[in-house]
């Protein structure tokens, strides 16, 4: 994906593309108060998003009207449950420009990545020759970046440990970007797969996936894009993305917890052996051995999280109705405003790109003399929910020489008032700890 970010003056309060008040009315949780009657300022959508009523209603509708195990049973409920499940698959596929047979439901992004990582090592020992195409073994290399969430790092470390392959990585520049100066050497003829995040969960950086895909294509390597922080926040078209896999989580895009997505190019999925095995992924089972369904069923063993999948279908409908281009613009406006507000506060340092060019709505920062936990505690006391710590991206905070950061993340219900509350809260923390 290319970012077409113009460079709005940071700190400017341009009209927001989304109607924040109308959207907030769809989110029941936003009407509750926290910490003795304070308005909930939810700036932690990057960890998990809140759910609009439409998503909650869809789950309830499923349980109250249709509930049955999909893809098994011949009764009416089973038929309708299968219909609802597959309809949601088609919606999710349409949301990312993919045919439905390329959409695999997983538990979350983490499981989707593990699915691919285990399929690549299972490929090495698969008895079926057609499953060995992408086998990873000794002498092969897997490439990640220093920017990855642990979910897109540990599974590859473990794959390398299982197979004897070597893990290599692309580093970071001082301004929070991928350092691609050695792309041509790090991604080379030995590379079997490049795993890269599209948007950093901690820095907000949006990465030039097309450049990485182009290099991977030159050497015949697969590319897996971690879309956990991008799919919820910008229009995605997998054809334009050019990668082989895109993974993301439902719960970060207004959907329920417990459902994630692995999108894979069909011919690549079709050449992979299964990860989890059991019911509903088989073709023929004999005591001596079994054969497996084609994708996506091959990768969906067991009764799936049907209600959650239906809820995710409602979530992508909700986002589609808002318009993902508007969602992206909305967050860019908020990010620019937030970067400007934070820059006005002495002692506050943003960890990540300083402007909105190729940057999403995750703003991490440190406050001189106040530990991120303590910043978070003061904010919490004011009703403001942020994330503190290393954000499951420990190498990133280490790279920038800080023990942890405080992170604010924006979404469709975020308004300028939320960002103002954040800025005021940071000043309150400085005052409380006596650093100003």
């Amino acid at each position, binding site marked *: 994906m290319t970012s077409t970010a113009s460079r709005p003056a940071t700190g400017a309060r341009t009209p927001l593309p989304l109607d924040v008040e109308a959207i907030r009315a769809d989110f029941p949780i936003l009407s509750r108060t926290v910490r003795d009657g304070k308005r909930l300022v939810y700036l932690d959508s990057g960890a998990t998003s809140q759910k609009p009523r439409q998503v909650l209603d869809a789950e309830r509708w499923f349980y109250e009207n249709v509930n049955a195990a999909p893809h098994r049973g011949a009764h009416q409920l089973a038929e309708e449950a299968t219909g609802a499940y597959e309809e949601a698959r088609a919606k999710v596929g349409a949301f990312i420009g993919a045919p439905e047979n390329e959409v695999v439901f997983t538990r979350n992004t983490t499981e989707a990545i593990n699915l691919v990582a285990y399929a690549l090592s299972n490929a090495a020992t698969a008895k079926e020759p057609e499953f060995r195409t992408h086998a990873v073994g000794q002498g092969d290399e897997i490439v990640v970046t220093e920017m990855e969430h642990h979910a897109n790092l540990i599974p590859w470390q473990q794959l390398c440990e299982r197979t004897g392959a070597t893990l290599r990585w692309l580093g970071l520049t001082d301004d929070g970007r991928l350092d691609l100066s050695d792309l041509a050497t790090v991604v080379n003829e030995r590379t079997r797969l490049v795993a890269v995040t599209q948007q950093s969960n901690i820095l907000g950086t949006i990465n030039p996936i097309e450049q990485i895909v182009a290099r991977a294509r030159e050497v015949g390597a697969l590319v897996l894009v971690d879309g956990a922080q991008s799919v919820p926040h910008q229009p995605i078209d997998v054809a334009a993305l050019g990668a082989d896999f895109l993974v993301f989580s439902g719960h970060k895009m207004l959907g329920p917890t417990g459902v994630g997505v692995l999108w894979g190019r069909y011919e690549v999925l079709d050449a992979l052996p299964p990860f989890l095995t059991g019911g509903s992924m088989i073709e023929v089972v004999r005591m001596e051995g079994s054969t497996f369904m084609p994708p996506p069923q091959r990768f969906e063993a067991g009764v799936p999280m049907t209600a959650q999948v239906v809820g995710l279908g409602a979530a992508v409908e909700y986002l589609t109705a808002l318009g993902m281009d508007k969602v992206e613009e909305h967050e860019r406006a908020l990010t620019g405003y937030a970067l400007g507000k934070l820059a006005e506060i002495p002692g506050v340092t943003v960890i990540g790109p300083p402007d909105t060019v190729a940057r999403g709505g995750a703003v991490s920062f440190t406050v001189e003399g106040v530990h991120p936990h*303590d910043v978070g505690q003061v904010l919490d006391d004011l009703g403001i929910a942020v994330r503190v710590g290393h954000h499951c991206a420990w190498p990133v905070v280490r790279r920038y020489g800080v023990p942890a950061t405080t992170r604010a993340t924006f979404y469709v219900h975020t308004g300028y008032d939320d960002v103002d509350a954040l800025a005021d809260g940071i000043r309150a923390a400085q005052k409380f700890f006596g650093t100003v």
Partner: protein
Amino acid sequence: MQLESMYQEIILDHYKNPHGRGLRDPFDAEVHHVNPTCGDEVTLRVKLDGDTVADVSYEGMGCSISQASVSAMYDLVVGKPVTEALETGEHFMTLMQAKGDPAVAEKLEDELEDAVAFAGVSKYPARIKCALMSWMALKDASARALSTTQAGGQ
């Protein structure tokens, strides 16, 4: 603001002016503990003199609660028999499980001295680990120091 119930003046004092900070020689055991949810770290050394905690020295990075906790712990355990120091640790654990119950804090006031000020932390489940990290490190280091010194004595 509810903040003052957690950030008692005593805690902020320990945070700003930590007691016993820095790693010192000699020592019988050194441990490194981390809080994996937030990345807070402490390196802690224990020096025993027989069965007595002769010194606890430490370096670490972390939030005010974790840093103040190790400082208050230093005051409480140095000069005490190891068993008593560990018992104090158990009392501190009890305090951290009290969910802010003032009766528990009151009962432990004599045993915990300054550290009783951490009672407010027990109302915030996410921060209890911050307060406990150094006590866990002490328990670990003491056990190692005892096994080292006892083995050395044989």
